[in-house]
């Protein structure tokens, strides 16, 4: 299709000439509603000068038909009666544009979702409703006025929140494409949860071996500004122009002077549980999270530091890098796009008292098992029971701990990784201890990824891991801290009691405990499960509903490493698409203030979820509200709340909606 030369000028004052195009949508609409009758009805409506039908209006032929008729019939308003505007409104708006008509002189009547689909068993009722929809659309169309699309510039830089595998991959992709990246990580090192893993299913490659080179790449890349031990404290602005405030927490160690010799660690008298090893090992108050940490910076944990001053003495720290009075530093950056990759927290099984976590020493979580299996973990890859440090002969795993729980307050979703990680851990242990007895208690085994089913099959067949279908009712501690499990084998339909040396809870993934903070900082939404919500579950899986902000990795929902990386690359690509173009079109459906009606009460300022409204001093009207069009999403909260009706949403003005409801019948 080519753009026509002829532009149709519409001021909004001339008599409307409306064309109604009714779509069959195959049999979706035509199978229920008599299309011919609908077309005839449309012709009787005021200002409708033309009406016709076609099998698929969205097809090339259908679009050409609309374009031809706009010119032939001199149409200045177009209505397509078809499906939901969500999918095809942009399609038809483009048709108008190509025909030389302002694309906002278009209205869609949804006679599929709102009529033929929901009332397919009542064709007569569906027909009546379809007529109503067309009449309302005609009423509104008569009030439509041309609108102009606005553009805003997009700064070629991206803020990535979270330095796990997803955030790192997104950062590397964007940096390679030449965009400036600010990678903010709240812990002292990047790497995220993946750094804690030993091997990765189903290929069994070592997590650290594939992760650490990426970490180094991130640190070395000149386009990436790595801000570890930092947190985003404020975000203002809008797509293309976000102003971000980042707080760099004090390390209490001068990173310029520190040579990383590690003598301070040898001398520090304070030992506390190491977060990285989930409390299975200790670290000192001055520490580096793990040997391969990037950046390899030493940090003093001031919560446990007793300020004895030993590390600061020149005998210990020769370069005198210890700074006890280190201050937090605030930096401000401007970015065009934001990617949220904040990851996940492990479900805390303490509240499930029946499984004895926290009460019996030999009950551990899957992530603790991962650290025990890790070759650079506290036990160098030789798991032992916490109670007596002996190698367990029998281990039971319980699946779906904190997942697929439909009781009040439980996580209803499947965490998607636990079946596979439990299988992997079981196989790893079996490799080293072929005589060991391993039981995996499950509800269903979900092995859906590439190579996963084969991996699971082989675990039973080649490794002799026992899969028991049934949830464990309770566990208690037997002699010698052994764990006695009571369950039902639902396949054999009989109760079983089993004594094992160690019991591993395959805990699920949860949204970050501080996800609320990110939600309010970035004004993005969360879905019912608490993870950040994507704009569309299928077609816009990395976008959020706030333009210019994308989401990647487990922050959006539980996923394994390949999926997290794929989504990160998707988010990077979407962000890059905005920045490559350099500017973005903003739909003109934003709020406008009628200054003569506005009384400046500021209610709209408080009500706006996007921070798009502010009070300004007007020369003629005094204090009035003013809308930032780039920030406004056109949600209408301000308009609905304005007692003086001083705010209207373009494309959905009070007159237009009022006409829809009350217009000529």
């Amino acid at each position, binding site marked *: 299709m080519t753009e026509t030369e002829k532009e149709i000028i519409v001021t909004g004052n001339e008599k409307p000439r409306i064309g109604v195009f009714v779509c069959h949508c195959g049999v979706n609409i035509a199978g229920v509603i008599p299309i011919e009758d609908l077309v005839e009805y449309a012709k009787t409506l005021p200002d409708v000068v033309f009406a016709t039908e076609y099998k698929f209006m969205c097809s090339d032929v259908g679009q050409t038909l609309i374009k031809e008729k706009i010119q032939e019939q001199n149409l200045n308003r177009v209505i397509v009666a078809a499906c939901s505007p969500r999918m095809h409104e942009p399609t038809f708006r483009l048709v108008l544009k190509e025909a030389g008509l302002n694309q906002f002189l278009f209205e869609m009547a949804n006679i599929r979702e709102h009529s033929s689909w929901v009332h397919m068993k009542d064709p007569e009722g569906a027909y009546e409703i379809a007529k109503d929809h067309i009449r309302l659309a005609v009423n509104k169309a008569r009030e439509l006025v041309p609108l102009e699309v606005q553009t805003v510039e997009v700064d070629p830089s991206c803020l990535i929140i979270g330095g796990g595998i997803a955030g790192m991959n997104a950062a590397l992709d964007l940096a390679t494409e030449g965009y400036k990246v600010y990678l903010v990580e709240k812990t002292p090192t990047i790497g995220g949860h993946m750094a804690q893993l030993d091997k990765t299913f189903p290929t069994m490659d070592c997590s650290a071996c594939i992760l650490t080179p990426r970490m180094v790449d991130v640190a070395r890349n000149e386009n990436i500004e790595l801000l570890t031990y930092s947190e985003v404290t404020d975000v203002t602005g809008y797509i293309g122009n976000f102003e971000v405030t980042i707080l760099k927490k004090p390390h209490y160690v001068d990173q310029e002077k520190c040579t990383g010799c590690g003598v301070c660690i040898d001398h520090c008298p304070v030992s506390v549980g190491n977060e990285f090893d989930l409390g299975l090992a200790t670290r000192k108050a001055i520490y580096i999270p793990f040997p391969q940490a990037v950046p390899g910076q030493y940090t003093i944990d001031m919560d446990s530091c007793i300020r004895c001053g030993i590390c600061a003495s020149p005998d210990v720290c020769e370069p005198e890098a210890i700074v006890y009075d280190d201050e937090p530093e605030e930096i401000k950056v401007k970015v065009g796009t934001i990617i949220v990759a904040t990851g996940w927290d492990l479900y805390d099984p303490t509240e499930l008292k029946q499984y004895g976590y926290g009460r019996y020493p030999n009950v551990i979580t899957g992530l603790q098992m991962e650290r025990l299996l890790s070759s650079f973990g506290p036990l160098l890859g030789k798991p032992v029971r916490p109670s007596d440090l002996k190698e367990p002969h029998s281990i039971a795993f319980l699946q779906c701990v904190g997942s697929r729980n439909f009781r009040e307050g439980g996580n209803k979703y499947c965490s998607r990784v636990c079946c596979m990680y439990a299988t992997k851990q079981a196989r790893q242990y079996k490799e080293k201890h072929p005589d060991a007895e391993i039981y995996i208690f499950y509800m269903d085994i979900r092995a859906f990824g590439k190579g996963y089913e084969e991996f699971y099959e082989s675990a039973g067949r080649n490794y002799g891991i026992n899969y028991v279908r049934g949830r464990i009712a309770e566990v208690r501690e037997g002699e010698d801290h052994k764990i006695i499990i009571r369950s039902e084998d639902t396949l054999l339909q009989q109760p079983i009691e089993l004594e094992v040396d160690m019991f591993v809870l395959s805990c699920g993934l949860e949204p970050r405990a501080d996800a609320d903070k990110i939600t*309010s900082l970035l004004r993005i939404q969360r879905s019912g499960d608490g993870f950040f919500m994507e704009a569309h579950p299928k077609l816009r899986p990395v976008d959020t509903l706030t333009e210019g902000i994308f989401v990647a990795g487990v922050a959006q929902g539980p996923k394994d490493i390949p999926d997290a990386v794929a989504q990160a690359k998707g988010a990077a690509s979407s962000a890059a698409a905005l920045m490559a173009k350099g500017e973005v079109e903003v739909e003109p459906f934003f709020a406008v203030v009628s200054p003569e009606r506005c*009384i400046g*009460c500021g209610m709209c300022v*408080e*009500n706006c979820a996007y921070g798009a409204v502010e009070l300004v001093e007007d020369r003629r009207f005094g204090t009035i509200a003013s809308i930032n069009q780039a920030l406004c999403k056109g949600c209408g909260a301000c308009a609905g709340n304005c*007692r003086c009706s001083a705010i209207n949403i373009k494309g959905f003005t009070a007159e237009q909606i009022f006409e829809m409801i009350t217009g000529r019948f």
Partner: protein
Amino acid sequence: MGIEEENQKIEKSIRDIARDLLKNKEVDVIIGYTEGTVPLSTSPIIIRDEKDVDKLVWNNFCYINLAKYLAPRMPQLVDPEKGELKVGIVTKGCVGRALIQLAIEKQINLDNVKIIGIPCNGIVNRRRIEKEIGEKEILEVSVSEDNIIVKGKNFEESFPFSEYINELCKQCKIKSPPKVDSCVGECGEYESVFDEFNDVKEFESKTPDEKWEYINDLLSTCTRCYACREACPMCYCNLCFVDQNKPIWFGKTTDQTEILMFHLIRAMHMAGRCVACGACSSVCPVGIDLNLITRKLEQMVKERYNFTSGIDIDKFPPMMDFEMEDEQEFMLEED
């Protein structure tokens, strides 16, 4: 102390404070009440000179909410050169609440307002007394001891004061204005106000159908003169929704539907903002008790959000506020 004596005491304190404020040039003008031109009523007055302070009065007919004259400012209160004049305002509890609410809504600047706080002792329900007197002309009304004495040609009737004040005043817990920085005179501290809402209990007990009938009946005599809107300190829009013509939300007639539309939309606009001064009912020429609607709203806002309007200058009314964490169980059904 009898009501009469109380009134004299309040009146004296108003005059003393007003005289001081004018003498010390702390304010340019004083807004207060003066004797009315008809019985059962008082008029608002603006005083600029300290020799006029004796015109200020206090009695139980001071039903006007003086905050009305500040938002938007009457032309008399704005100097072409100096801008907004500094105003001292005679403030009973509900006027104080209105001032605070207007300050929250950014309509007035309290720095320019001196609040002359007084402990209000109740406002007479003038419409009820008029109704009971009937056709006869009232020529003189006074409060003596604990009775309201109504005199006319060939008759004199007495009404017990405590019974014949506004229902609102009987329930009122905020007699003196809530304390703010610019208070002089008597002000009170109110953190959380306990209100039983006894005056809406009877309405509460009705079925939805009975309520609908009651409201219809209550409003059926409305002539849409908009006196309620004009007296209300919280009605300050440049263009009221009933006067808009683009679009014309609904017609201008006294058809029952349109009367209802006016009052119900106005009630929505008042939710969480009404300061329960009762001015609307007092000025209604056909004696409609609008307080029932506004009190019911006040009760709902109190129960749902634990909010009382006009007592805390730092607290936004719930209908004006937005938090991500706001309860929304009434619009979203949890699965």
